[in-house]
């Protein structure tokens, strides 16, 4: 099912026709499953269950959606909250899988480093980055994933995490600092 309608239009349509909600599910399913994977929900069935719950919650609370926000931010928020509940309930250690090499994040970290020549010769592989991510506190991991893997703006992150924009900056700053601490020793020496 394809549609050129905006998210907001589909939301309005869904209020009268439940089936229209399928358009939104199809539009965001892949992105949000990938987001959950990056957050550390390692088992595909768990990711699907979380997302299923998130979509049902979104549907039931469709009238609380603020049209001034991006629907995607709102949907990320609900999914994020579901994921955090999942982690709390399972008390499971996150299994972060980063299929990308995190180039955007590395660029950012490099920009903050004085030894750019050394960095240019090395690439951090995604497994090492994933291991380092798994060591981070959830709030830091989430901030880095949203910014550098989901490519969300500060304002969108503010809407997703429900914190002021200034707090997003602080979170990112601290998250990068913590990441540097937990990265393998040789990468810290060579990269940063």
């Amino acid at each position, binding site marked *: 099912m394809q549609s050129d309608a905006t998210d907001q239009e589909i939301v309005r349509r869904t209020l009268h026709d439940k089936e229209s*909600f399928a358009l939104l599910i199809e539009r965001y399913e892949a992105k949000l499953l990938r987001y959950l994977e990056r957050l550390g929900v390692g088992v595909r069935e768990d990711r699907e269950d979380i997302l299923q719950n998130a979509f049902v919650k979104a549907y039931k609370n469709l009238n609380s959606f603020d049209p001034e926000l991006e629907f995607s931010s709102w949907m990320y928020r609900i999914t994020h909250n579901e994921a955090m509940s999942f982690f709390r309930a399972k008390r499971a250690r996150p299994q972060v899988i980063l299929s990308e090499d995190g180039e955007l994040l590395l660029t950012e970290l490099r920009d903050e480093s004085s030894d750019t020549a050394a960095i240019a010769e090395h690439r951090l592989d995604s497994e090492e980055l994933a291991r380092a991510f798994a060591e981070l506190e959830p709030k830091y991991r989430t901030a880095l994933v949203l910014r550098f893997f989901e490519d969300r703006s500060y304002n969108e992150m503010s809407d997703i995490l429900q914190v002021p924009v200034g707090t997003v900056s602080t979170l990112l700053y601290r998250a990068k600092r913590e990441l540097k601490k937990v990265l393998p020793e040789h990468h810290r020496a060579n990269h940063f």
Partner: protein
Amino acid sequence: MPPSHHHDDPLTKRVLERISDEHVRPRWEFVVKNYFFWGLGALAVLLGALAVSAILFEVTNVDWRLASATHGSLAALILAAAPYLWIVALIVFVVVGYRNVRLTSRGYRYRLSTIALGAVLTSLTLGSALHMGGFSRAIEESIGDHPAFYRPILATEQSWWNAPEKGLIGGVVTAVAPDIASFTVRGFDGATWQVDGDDLLLRDRTTVARGGMVRIVGVPLVSTSTSGTFFHACFVFPFAPMMGWRHMMPPPPLATLASTSGHESPAERSAECRGIQPYHDLRQVETDDAAASNEN
């Protein structure tokens, strides 16, 4: 409802199956919830304003200049008279206000400092207006009477002037001799004091002649009679609560100072008065008051 576990089905199908029996919650629920939290936030700020007006009433009604007489030092008076309850109340209301605003649909966008500053400034503005409008005493006393551990500031201050052993008495001037060399005071605790005013300077005598509530620093006398207890006055200060920006008006004068009374006020107080502990501080208060009067 738990998630459907037919993982072979597409997610869309599973979600649509689950929502087939669900209903979208009506919009009014969210609107009411949002207004509810804004309302609680606003209410907290209004209560904060009441706290501010009570704080202002207390701060403006403590005579800080007489600290050395009543408490020995300004620091001791500050510790004794700080409006703790109202400051705590203000902090609680600001926190409650913040939490409620934070729970509104877009409340997360505001920083704690922004909301707290906004709430404090609004409370300060409204509280100052209430104080200037003369409502702060009623607020401080009516709300302040309820907790058993709390005593309104005027009652507290009166208790400080109910300590003849420390040379402090206060009350209402009920009778004045024509030459104002002596007068009667009904103390804040109801006791009657026969006060000897021989040592009073013209400024003190004017205060006595005006009547109303006064605070007296002096020396208690051992002799008593059926008509009351005797007290030798060295300084007399009016006790006129501040109502907003002005002092409460005292009643009409009880006596008129006449230069022909034959009993002139002394140029300087006796050694007995000069020996009281905060004598020089009290003289300074007199000097400051005289300077302020001349400026006016």
